[in-house]
């Protein structure tokens, strides 16, 4: 008997059912086909500006920095400004995201834009989020060539662009969106939910930023 059969057999006998138990199978299939939404806290259930404002304040509470710009055209300038204010070299790494590509990066003289997965020497990564979550100040980023996962973790600074219209109240709304985009029961290889910059409290419980992932997270909310 294989380990698989042995384990499943023990579980079945503990549940004291035969493998053909119809009602149990039906309950499982039903839940998987139509996931119950569960209890959604009231905190994020806001509309319009109130929801965006909550997202911004929750993100700031976990020591991300947040700035709002009027339109996508303003993003390259905002990125340059961020680099200057932090004394960083004018070079960023990003994937092939169409929303990022449409922006006029050439307008930023002397800014180098490298495409593809992040390399060890990259200091700043720029990503475009699929969605924001107001309840917790979280950003959702699927993997792939548009926004490679390494850009989220390898550089010291991570700049994430998110459209204000993509900020949801709660994680469940984002899950529904992922399901629509990738298909029922399907997922991108990785879905990163990022809430603030990397940190560790492992030495005497003192929370310190920049453990292994980015030391700083800068969020640019595009209103237009």
């Amino acid at each position: 008997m294989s380990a698989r059969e042995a384990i499943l057999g023990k579980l079945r006998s503990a549940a004291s059912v035969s493998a053909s138990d119809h009602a149990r199978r039906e309950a499982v299939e039903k839940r998987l086909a139509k996931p119950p939404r569960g209890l959604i806290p009231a905190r994020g259930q806001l509309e319009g500006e109130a929801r965006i404002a909550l997202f911004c304040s929750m993100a700031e509470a976990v020591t991300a920095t947040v700035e709002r710009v009027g339109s996508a055209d303003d993003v390259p300038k905002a990125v340059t400004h961020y680099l200057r204010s932090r004394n960083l070299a004018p070079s960023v790494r990003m994937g092939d995201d169409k929303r990022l590509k449409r922006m006029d990066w050439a307008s930023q003289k002397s800014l180098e834009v490298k495409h593809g997965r992040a390399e060890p020497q990259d200091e700043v990564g720029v990503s475009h989020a699929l969605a924001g979550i107001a309840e917790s100040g979280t950003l959702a980023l699927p993997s792939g060539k548009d926004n490679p996962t390494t850009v989220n973790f390898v550089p010291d600074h991570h700049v994430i662009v998110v459209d204000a219209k993509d900020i949801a109240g709660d994680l469940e709304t984002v899950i529904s969106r992922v399901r629509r985009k990738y298909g029922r029961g399907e997922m991108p290889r990785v879905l990163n939910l990022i809430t603030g910059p990397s940190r560790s409290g492992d030495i005497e419980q003192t929370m310190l930023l920049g453990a292994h992932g980015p030391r700083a997270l800068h969020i640019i909310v595009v209103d237009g």
Partner: protein
Amino acid sequence: MEVQSPQFKEKARKAMADEQLQRAMGKAKVGFVSKRRKAVDALPEFDELRSSARAIKDHTLEHLDLYLEAYERKVIASGGRVHWAETAEDARQAVLSICRAAGARTVTKGKSMITEEIALNDFLEKEGVRPVETDLGEYIIQLRGEHPSHIIGPALHLNKEQVEEDFRRVHTELPPERDLSQPESLLGEARNILRPQYFQADVGITGANFLVAETGTSIIVTNEGNGDLTQTLPRIHIVVASIEKVVPTLEDASQILRVLARSATGQDMSVYTTLSTGPRRPDDPDGPDEYHVILLDNGRSSMLGTEFHEMLRCIRCGACMNHCPVYHAVGGHAYGWVYPGPMGSVLTPSLVGVDKAGHLPNASTFCGRCESVCPMQIPLPRMMRNWREREFERGLNPAAQRFGLGFWAFFARRPKLYRLATSMAIPTLSGFAGRRGWFRSLPFAGGWTRHRDLPAPESRTFMQQWRDREAGKSERSAV
């Protein structure tokens, strides 16, 4: 890891005399508690979410075989592989054969209690594969040759001066005059040392907080980002997870996530919640070529349907130990195995046997704080009592204790005799204690009075006092 739980008493005694440990525990017991309180108070729905999370796990455990089968189908469909392991040895062999097939020499690891449970590091080292712990706390204790003293804060028992000493001892390639007096500098040094390891490693191993049956997804929840670098950069990602980690759907995981970080560190969400499904896709510029899941039983299926069934709801947040007066006093290492605190006192006897771990369920004051803060509403004190009963049934506790209990039971089963005996003993004890009201020492009670005084009883028994009170009442109502 060798089970050292039979030495609990010696270890606890040593721990209470260990100044470094007591200093570290002094900080630990206030931090976690106040952070959790703040996060819970800020979410009015927290208690309702606990009930919701509990219901999800109860439903899953009732259908565990079916959800595991569904999960396996989805992992395979997304290009991953599933390895079932009945025992720790099966799991170790499964990891090794993946490493061997890949010619792996270095393995980076994200924080994982399950790989502590199967003692993976020692095994891999013996087999010539070098494991590198990347979580800051795990890295520190790996340098010291220790085991975690807390399930989410592995180095909770240490002070920063001890960490500095270890870094100076091991990182000899760095200038000896460097300043390591601040935690920031220690963190920075660990980051710089570990960074190249992620890129050099052939295999990355992580645990899982959840496995999602709906999509074949494994979820890890971390703050440092080390788990993500571990699973993104090497060619092979191995997830080691026990069978009770499965939940039905993404929404179910989301419900439990809302209580997990709040109960653990007092965060609304941990920094990185990462949902992984299968290996690199055709158009992926990064990610592992192979994705393996090792599904470990190691005694859990035997808990299902027993009085310890509810322990399988545990999501390893650590809230029970953060609120435990016994854990605060002795720290995690005294418990002698992988899982300390109240959850360890229930789980360890289940996994290694009550004959070895009988001291643990006895090391409780039954104050009930653990159950009151448990996000999954696990009745930990009741289950510790169940272990005490099993221990007694099997005659595992010491003769003096068994004799004492037998002596008491003899009288307790004979109410008239009991009343007579207590009505004689109570005034005697009360008289001996005198006006002071307590005993400094007492025959047969040295175990108690060596460390504290024993309060003397009132001069009359409870039954006598009750009778008088009732008589008083009926007189008053007659008036």
